[in-house]
């Protein structure tokens, strides 16, 4: 039944008031950030070598993580969505677990697995001379550990929504599994894939706890933007403000760029 315009104009004031408080709570820190930013020093600080290193390292590692998440996450999501195998529920629970786990715990787990005296790390070191902790590779590993589940669960949700009969028809028309995946499945789940990719990438860009625990805080090698920001808070709060602002700008512009093209519809994949 259609509501009369008169009725529609009547706003539920208590709900509105509470909702506005929530908006204000999320919005006000951004205003505080802008308010306190020392704009006159902006260029000087952003042009500093260590800041540029941190920004470059963050972009490089988070992009690498995003690519790795797609390469390893999409097949895993396909398995979870399409194949009924023993241990499927376990794997899905594992994905959710690493998503809700405090990242610092992930960092400790990585350290005691791939560290020099860790479960695998000791052999990597003694057999191949590979030491992972405190390297850029470790940064990517820490990011992948926390970001992969976002991609997997998003793509899996997309695959589950897709009627499997589309793939059936494509098979009967002579499409090999790979051809069908490439031409039918993948284009159909594009919104979920992009949403998962953005979530994983954003998660990787903001990664702090696992990185500082497993990869350390070495400028130029493992000091990403969040780490540099935190380090600057002690020594040079103005830098911390400007670094925060740069991260807000980077994250915001990519979200805006993607939103209209792929994430506009809330009914496709994850609503962003």
């Amino acid at each position, binding site marked *: 039944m259609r509501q009369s315009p008169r009725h529609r104009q009547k706003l539920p004031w208590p709900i509105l008031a509470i909702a506005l408080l929530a908006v204000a709570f999320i919005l006000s820190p951004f205003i505080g950030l802008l308010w306190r930013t020392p704009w006159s020093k902006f260029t000087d600080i952003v042009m500093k070598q260590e800041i540029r290193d941190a920004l470059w390292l963050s972009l490089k590692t988070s992009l690498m993580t995003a690519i790795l998440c797609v390469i390893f996450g999409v097949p895993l999501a396909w398995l979870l969505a399409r194949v009924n195998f023993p241990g499927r529920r376990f794997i899905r629970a594992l994905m959710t677990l690493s998503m809700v786990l405090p990242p610092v715990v992930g960092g400790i787990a990585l350290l005691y697995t791939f560290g020099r005296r860790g479960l695998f790390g000791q052999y990597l070191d003694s057999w191949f001379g590979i030491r992972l902790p405190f390297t850029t590779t470790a940064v990517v590993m820490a990011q992948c550990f926390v970001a992969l589940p976002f991609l997997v669960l998003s793509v899996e949700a997309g695959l589950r929504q897709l009627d499997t009969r589309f793939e059936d028809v494509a098979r009967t*028309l*002579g499409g090999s599994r790979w051809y069908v995946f490439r031409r039918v499945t993948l284009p*159909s789940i594009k919104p979920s894939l992009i949403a998962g990719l953005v979530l994983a990438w954003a998660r990787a860009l903001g990664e702090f706890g696992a990185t500082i625990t497993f990869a350390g805080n070495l400028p130029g090698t493992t000091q990403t933007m969040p780490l540099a920001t935190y380090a600057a808070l002690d020594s040079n709060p103005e830098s911390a403000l400007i670094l925060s602002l740069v991260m807000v700008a980077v994250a915001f512009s990519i979200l805006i760029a993607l939103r209209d093209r792929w994430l506009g519809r809330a009914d496709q994949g994850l609503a962003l």
Partner: protein
Amino acid sequence: MTFDTRFTLTRGSFELNVDISFHEGEVVAIMGPNGSGKSTFLHAIAGLLPATSGSLVLDDQTLDEATSEVFIDPTQRPVGIVFQGGLLFETMTILENIIFGLRARKIKRTDATHQAQPLINQFGLAELLDRHPRELSGGQAQRVAIARALITAPKVLLLDEPMSGLDTTTRQLVRAEFREVLAGFAGYRILVTHDVNDALSMADRIIELDHGKVIWDGSTSEYRGKL
């Protein structure tokens, strides 16, 4: 020539157990309520599910034989399917939908388009080629789906609930159109439906399934007499 399907197929607690011979030229309707095994039967013919025991033999080609472990992959079976609503690939144009079966066999786009011309003309699709499935009416989508299924020149044409989801007026039109299509197709024609009127108006022979078993197999006129 016959298409002999004599097999059982177990899925969890459900078992489909059939022994049906199809004859070239006849239109057979497979009827039954939801869960009767219609869909499983269709999957077995298309090779999307393997038989648990028994065999499916099309003319002199064994498609699936449980004992000898012969199993022809769905990509290699001469079977075309038209599902309910057409199930056109949403991300492709109508032309790309029609020539999908040729492109999957690595035929060049220009050659495939050329090869598709007779079907495009037969189904009056020339005007629609650049459009996307969501811009089509239910009846148009069905015609595209049939053209897509026929492009690989299958010997068996499976129509799965092709009429449901259409409104009454469109249904009448599409039914007439389907009769024409079925008349123009020389191979084995199998129509899966839960609608008695669809079966009566289009089929020569009606097979009724229930709980995975054949409970009726006879000519349409006999079936009409039974009602």
